[in-house]
């Protein structure tokens, strides 16, 4: 937000020390963000895998490395039983 890196022209030693401290604080905050973002992504990976598998064509379910985004429109076949009106119309 309003946090900025070190003051570009630290003239008085005391201000320099403050600036260095602020810079360290800024770096620490970015590092916390980075650690949190990576670990949150790892926590959510099983959910994403579950969603992506539900959209896979049956043959893609077993593929390694996993197919993260559906490659064909076959996912619609997987999901069709959830939409009874449409399957009733097409049969």
């Amino acid at each position, binding site marked *: 937000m309003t946090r900025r890196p070190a003051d570009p022209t630290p003239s008085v030693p005391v201000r320099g020390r403050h600036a260095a401290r602020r810079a360290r604080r800024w770096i620490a905050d970015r590092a916390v963000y980075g650690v949190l973002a990576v670990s949150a992504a790892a926590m959510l*990976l099983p959910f994403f895998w579950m969603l992506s598998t539900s959209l896979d064509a049956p043959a893609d379910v077993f593929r390694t490395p996993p197919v993260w985004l559906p490659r064909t429109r076959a996912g619609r076949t997987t999901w069709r039983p959830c939409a009874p009106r449409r399957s009733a119309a097409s049969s």
Partner: protein
Amino acid sequence: MVVARSWTWARLAPYAYVLPATAIVVMFVMFPIAYSFYLSLLSWDFIRPVPAYVGLENYRRLLADPDIRRALEHTLAYTAGTVPLSAALGLAVAALLNRPLRTRGLFRTAFFAPTVTSTVAMSVVWAWIYHPQVGLMNTLLRALGLPALGWLSDPRTALLALVVMSAWKGLGYDMVLFLAGLQGIPPELEDAAAIDGATRAQAFWRVMLPLLSPTTLFVLIISTVDAIQVFTQVSLMTDGGPAGATDVLVYSLWRHAFQTFEMGYASALAWVVFLILLVLTAAQMRFFKDAVSGAEAAR
């Protein structure tokens, strides 16, 4: 006459009010607990109309049963792995989130999501993640150039795989409790530590963590009670296998009760699990006694 009746009513009304709730608790909680103790003294297969009274024979058999001893070892290993791992990770995340980050809600949701998801659904997903050929874990290991593992199909890694999955599932709950605990600590105490020249790390380890000990005790007791009773993951992901490597106490209990129909033996095992929990909880409370009273005095 009227006075007398209203006096009686005033005396009896409270009992009438608590009667429905009491009846439910007695019927569905207290009676089954008492009945399970009665059952533990019997030899009963569900079918015979008159169970045989065997006294403490079931308990004597339990102590000598090598399968139960093995299940106890697995349960304790699982607990010793899961509880500290999820508590430590939950505490770490809570400490990182205990600052005015704009995206705090987002992160909290991400870490808490596994806790509020059905254990059954997540067991199925993780059984896939651990699949030796197409699972995510082995795909990841191969991408890093490491040898693939058998995970759930290898007796050496199956229990570890369950520990990892359960820590993933439990750390969000611990995080929420620790976060609440951290926010209950007056900020002046951390400021005072900073003024006294403590670094942030020192302030955390020497000031925040001791003040957090009532929360830590609660987290450890709750998650130990949970871990000792682990069943769903075992039942869905490994069936106690491979080769009995993940056979835990409650899974064993379920097998004796509903597969080999030894109700008396299973009930005795339930009481042994209860006694183990009682001892562990008492030990934890004893261990944390000084820290908790110190933290409460400091507030």
